[in-house]
């Protein structure tokens, strides 16, 4: 009996060492339960489907660009350049949008209110906007001065006139939600008005700046 106990203990020691060795990837899969394996298979299939879609769309794009002739490619590139310029604020833009006016008789509207308004308009799909004579772009900043707000270094005095390009319905509704820009302006003692326009012309631009350190990626030649 004692011997058998010893043999069993020996087996235990042996199995302990065998079971605690770090498993190689194939062994790890062999140890997994069926439900885990099914989930793994599911994930892999989904990933494969997504990558397949990506591959197809990239192939189509390559097809389009290589089979088009030079003029079409140039036109495509120009289209991209125009839309990027509008988004970057270096080109004027026209289109449906809204004109929003914030009057501030008590001089109580601060930069935060204007910044909030810009964020809300962006969230509602405004893609080009200007306040008074300053184009609002990615790095526009707002600061307070007595009696006025400084927008990217340019002093803006009330009433603040926003010209925003985008879907007029969505923009106007977004401004009027409870707790939105309209409410904030009125709470701060200002007067808020918004009007849909079929054509809004944003003519303010920002100058194109050359970067000090960044360089464009060299084209493969």
């Amino acid at each position: 009996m004692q011997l058998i106990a010893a043999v069993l203990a020996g087996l235990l020691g042996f199995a302990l060492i065998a079971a605690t060795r770090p498993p190689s990837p194939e062994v790890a899969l062999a140890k997994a339960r069926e439900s885990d394996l099914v989930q793994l298979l599911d994930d892999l299939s989904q990933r494969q489907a997504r990558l397949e879609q990506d591959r197809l769309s990239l192939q189509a794009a390559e097809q389009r660009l290589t089979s088009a002739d030079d003029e079409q490619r140039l036109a495509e590139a120009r289209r991209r350049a125009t839309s990027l310029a509008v988004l970057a604020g270096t080109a004027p833009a026209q289109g449906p949008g809204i004109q929003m006016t914030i009057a501030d008789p008590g001089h109580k509207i601060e930069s935060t209110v204007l910044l909030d308004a810009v964020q809300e308009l962006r969230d509602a799909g405004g893609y080009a906007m200007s306040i008074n004579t300053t184009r609002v772009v990615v790095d526009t900043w707002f600061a307070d001065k007595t009696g006025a707000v400084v927008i990217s270094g340019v002093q803006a005095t009330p009433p603040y006139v926003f010209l925003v390009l985008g879907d007029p319905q969505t923009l106007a509704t977004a401004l009027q939600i409870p707790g939105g820009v309209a409410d904030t302006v009125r709470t701060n003692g200002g007067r808020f008005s918004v009007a849909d326009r079929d054509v809004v012309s944003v003519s303010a631009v920002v100058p194109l700046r050359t970067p000090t350190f960044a360089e464009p990626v060299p084209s493969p030649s």
Partner: protein
Amino acid sequence: MIAAIGLVIGIVLGIVFQPGVPLWLQPYLPIAVVAAIDAVFGGVRALLDDVFDDRVFVVSFLSNVMIAGLLVFLGDQLGVGGQISTGVVVVLAMRIFSNAAAIRRRLFHA
């Protein structure tokens, strides 16, 4: 005492031979090892209480391992493999802890 020597010899052999576990045994080995450890702790506690019996130890060892393996197999067949193995491990760990506590009290009177 001979059993302790046997355990050490088994560990040494395991380190020396670096065994690979056969595929069909893979899911059951960890649970079987935990069940065997529980039996060993029970044996040590019995030893310290002077009620150690070889036959009881051997039977409890084998039955623990068999029952643990059977439960895991049954769980896999029923589709609740993960839950059953968790339950088995929890119960075995509880028993290991209570045996270890008794051993500790006996050894260190604390």
